[in-house]
């Protein structure tokens, strides 16, 4: 027989609150180590690119930001879906906690991309398939957050915003495959593909460290925001007495 206790425990706010608090420390430490190594090696150790020189070093913050902008959205949409289907409050809390983090990484991806595109491509912005779909992703995040704040009742905010999050999922494959489907100024994927990465190890290791490190950073931020969400949702619950005394 399948043991479903883990699923029920995941739905229990006190358990999730305490687990998030414990995990947060680990995630923060891992994020600090990986991002620290990745950015240092990317900026100071990795060789310059044969065509782009040192401008290519923007990749070490641009690619992980872009990757996270999509990962945060996937997390948000999946959590929102779980929340809708199983009426799971914690899942809605995860979705709500993900949105502002995802929005900030989407903004970073667009901004660093622009700073990279200007010297290399010759333009800050072009209405290209990849750039446009990433901009729409930012609109989706902002719409999701605005929609949440327009409801006073949390349950209704959860449901309405979940629908928007799920509908917006269609944008994710469009962002990823845009560079192959349309004649795009943006190049294809260097790492996120089935083929081996188009980069030597000296450039690749710092990038992989940044990708993983940024993901842990997201996980750590999610833990903090999720705990805030749980506190607000459970403010009348008796288990909080124990938590508040402890901290």
């Amino acid at each position, binding site marked *: 027989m399948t043991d479903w206790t883990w699923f029920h425990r995941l739905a229990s706010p006190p358990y999730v609150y305490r687990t998030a608090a414990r995990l947060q420390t680990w995630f923060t430490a891992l994020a600090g180590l990986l991002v620290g190594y990745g*950015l240092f090696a990317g*900026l*100071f*150790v990795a*060789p*310059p690119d044969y065509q782009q*020189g*040192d*401008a290519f*070093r*923007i990749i070490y*913050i*641009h690619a992980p*930001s872009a990757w996270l902008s999509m990962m945060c959205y996937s997390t948000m949409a999946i959590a929102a879906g779980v929340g809708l289907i199983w009426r799971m409050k914690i899942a809605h809390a995860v979705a709500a906690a993900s949105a*502002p*983090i995802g929005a*900030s990484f989407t*903004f*970073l991806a667009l*901004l*660093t991309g622009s*700073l*990279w595109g*200007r*010297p290399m491509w010759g333009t800050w912005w072009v209405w290209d398939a990849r750039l446009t779909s990433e901009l729409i992703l930012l609109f989706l995040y902002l719409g999701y957050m605005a929609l949440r704040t327009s409801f006073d009742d949390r349950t209704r905010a959860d449901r309405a915003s979940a629908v928007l999050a799920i509908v917006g999922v269609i944008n994710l494959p469009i962002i990823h495959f845009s560079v192959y489907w349309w004649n795009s100024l943006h190049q294809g994927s260097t790492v996120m593909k089935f083929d081996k990465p188009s980069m030597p190890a000296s450039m690749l290791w710092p990038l992989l460290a940044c990708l993983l490190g940024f993901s842990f*950073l997201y996980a750590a*931020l999610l833990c*903090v*925001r999720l*705990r*805030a*969400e749980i*506190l*607000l949702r459970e*403010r*009348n619950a008796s288990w*909080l*007495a124990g938590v*508040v005394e402890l*901290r």
Partner: protein
Amino acid sequence: MMGRSFSDVIAMGGYAGFVWTAYGAWLVVIVLNILAARKAHADALKQVRRRLAMRDPANVEVDRS
């Protein structure tokens, strides 16, 4: 390559403006992200504390006196 001189690193092969602006913006957004998340948690905690204090019978008696 390894052993790039300090001034080489700062100059970024002529792309200093673009590279350092990008990294600077990254740092600002990450710091704001951390501060905002921590503030959200601190605010929520404050709200819960206030509620708990209101429900605490000891405080209720102090209020009545």
